[in-house]
């Protein structure tokens, strides 16, 4: 495999590490605090999948849009959503990113180009195409990324949108994060044929990526996004990666073979690989990364404490923002 590490500046590498580390810490805190009963609702964590979100979103500006999935914390953080406002939202507080009305599955910040996580599998894919359509109608060079999981590859919405994007030549990247399981069912069982072949069937430029390796993600996504931005038509990334927690918090994940997650954490953890590669290439030092680790821990301490203390929404919030005007 090509060693991509040396092509990065230290600044970019450190920024990437900080965001990945923030996502990991964010997810780990929610895992722990959800188990303590602090957090209402349904939670889907993306720990383990950080390199994909960060490797792609680092190539996007706030004017580029992404749509995400029920497993959307990592994408939101990678696209620049505020850590404190996100934590407040997940804790169902009035100061949350969505005023406490969306929760974990509906995190969004349109000012950052984040159209939203989504509670419907495949539901965000056409929305991302809409952002790409805007770019086409206005002849701008903005692009859109539709993040979706292996489960969504079997949704009609996703396949219809891949075809529409090709037919209309929309500037969109379909980023399929294949973590091996659609809920409890292996993607190897649920996807008839293979995923890249399906995308190629729609005429999309298709790439297979190891989502455990930030450097590969970053380099390939950068090249692909540049192509799409230049008007070369939609592209499809098949990203193999791993999630560490259950489909939802509370899922014992007994459908996974014993030891699978431990093995992945030991051998393929994206933060570990990043550290090994970047330090070995003398891109950054271990001390720099250690310092980021400490800063992120303090940041998340603060975010969790803020979320715990933040006020709840009130009865008057129940009726606001159903319509712009009515």
């Amino acid at each position, binding site marked *: 495999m090509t060693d991509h590490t040396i092509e990065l500046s230290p600044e970019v590498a450190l920024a990437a590490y900080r965001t990945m580390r923030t996502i990991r810490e964010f997810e780990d805190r929610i895992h722990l605090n959800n188990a303590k009963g602090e957090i209402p609702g349904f939670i889907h964590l993306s720990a383990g999948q950080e390199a994909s979100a960060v490797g792609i979103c680092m190539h996007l500006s706030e004017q580029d849009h992404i749509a995400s999935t029920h497993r959307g914390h990592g994408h939101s953080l990678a696209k620049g959503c505020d850590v404190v406002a996100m934590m407040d939202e997940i804790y169902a507080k009035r100061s949350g990113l969505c*005023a406490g009305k*969306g929760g974990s599955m509906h995190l*969004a910040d349109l000012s950052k180009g984040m159209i939203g996580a989504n509670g419907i599998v495949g539901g965000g894919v056409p929305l991302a195409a809409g952002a790409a*359509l*805007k770019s086409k*109608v206005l002849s701008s060079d903005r692009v859109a990324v539709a993040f979706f999981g292996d489960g969504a590859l079997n949704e009609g919405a996703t396949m*219809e*949108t891949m075809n529409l994007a090709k037919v209309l030549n929309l500037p969109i990247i379909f980023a399929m994060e294949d973590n091996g399981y659609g809920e409890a069912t292996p993607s190897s069982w649920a996807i008839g044929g293979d995923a890249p072949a399906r995308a190629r069937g729609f005429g999309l430029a298709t790439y297979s990526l190891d989502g455990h390796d930030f450097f590969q993600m970053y380099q390939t996504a950068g090249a692909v996004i540049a192509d799409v931005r230049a008007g070369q038509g939609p592209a499809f990334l098949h990203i193999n990666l791993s999630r560490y927690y259950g489909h939802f918090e509370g899922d014992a994940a007994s459908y996974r073979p014993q030891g699978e997650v431990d093995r992945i954490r030991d051998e393929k953890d994206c933060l570990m690989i990043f550290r090994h590669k970047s330090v070995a290439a003398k891109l950054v030092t271990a001390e720099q990364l250690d310092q980021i680790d400490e800063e992120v821990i303090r940041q998340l301490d603060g975010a969790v404490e803020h979320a715990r203390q933040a006020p709840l929404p009130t009865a008057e919030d129940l009726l606001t*923002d159903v319509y712009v005007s009515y």
Partner: protein
Amino acid sequence: MSEKSFRQAINEALSMEMRRDPNVFLIGEDIAGGTGGDGEEDAWGGVMGVTKGLLGEFGAHRVIDTPISETAYIGAAIGAAATGMRPVAELMFCDFAGVCFDQIMNQAAKLRYMLGGQAKVPLVIRTQCGGGFNAAAQHSQTLHGLFTHIPGLKVVMPSNPYEAKGLLIEAIRDDDPVMYMEHKFMYDDKGEAPDESYTIPLGEACYSRDGEDITVCSLGRMVNLCNQAADELQAENINCTVIDLRCTSPLDEESICESIAETGHLVVVDEGYPRCGFAADIAALAAVQAQSALRAPVKLVTPPHTTIPFAPALEELYIPSVERIKQGIREALGV
């Protein structure tokens, strides 16, 4: 002011708004018709010819034909609206909401509230409704009740060319997602409408006629049948108020209740399914807010709770007719 068809009125509203606002664009199946082929490019202008000619003026980047993929293009219109555009999507028949309802119900309708007020979705979905063409069960429904049930959607149904133009311009300028329902039986209906641009507010009913004996509430094509029934009932010395509601969401509750207070009698006429439907909703409104003014039970004139039949002999029985409306009014008045 000039005489226009319902079809022309809609076409004018679209072209005027597209000229006014570069963020307005059209997307749908065969709204040009012929894109990518070797024949005529603007072959159809929509299956009913409503968007005919717009491709020539505005070009293929603003009059966008799509594959037959309602989920993808309705969803893309929603995404474009949420990111700052003002699209008008054509859903050929409202029956086809069945293949893209997730995008309408779970995305368009909910984004604003679910994202804490940061999103707006200024989208219009134009869609045909209604029976009378013997188009059978999957091309004849009038699903305003289904859309009205979903908070976050606005639902509009014009009854004549004047309303068609003014309500559509208003719907395009509105910042919420609007289901704009065009009764397929009305495209050739003629009526006077201004040539210039004008708007009709959403949620304001119109007193289509005034009469002291009974209030008849309806919308869309049924308004015209109600007016015909009211004309004919004058010979029986029955004078009807006919309220054209224009919208089911927002709903002009005040006009309905005020009229009931004056007449003491209510008939609701609707082409939609009766169970949990529009007519039942208005009856409930009257029961809750105007019961003391009601001097007799409310009468509903709707189709039966069945699938829409194909055979002309059956469809005629299914759709509320002038005769059935007259009979409903007589029964409500006990005459």
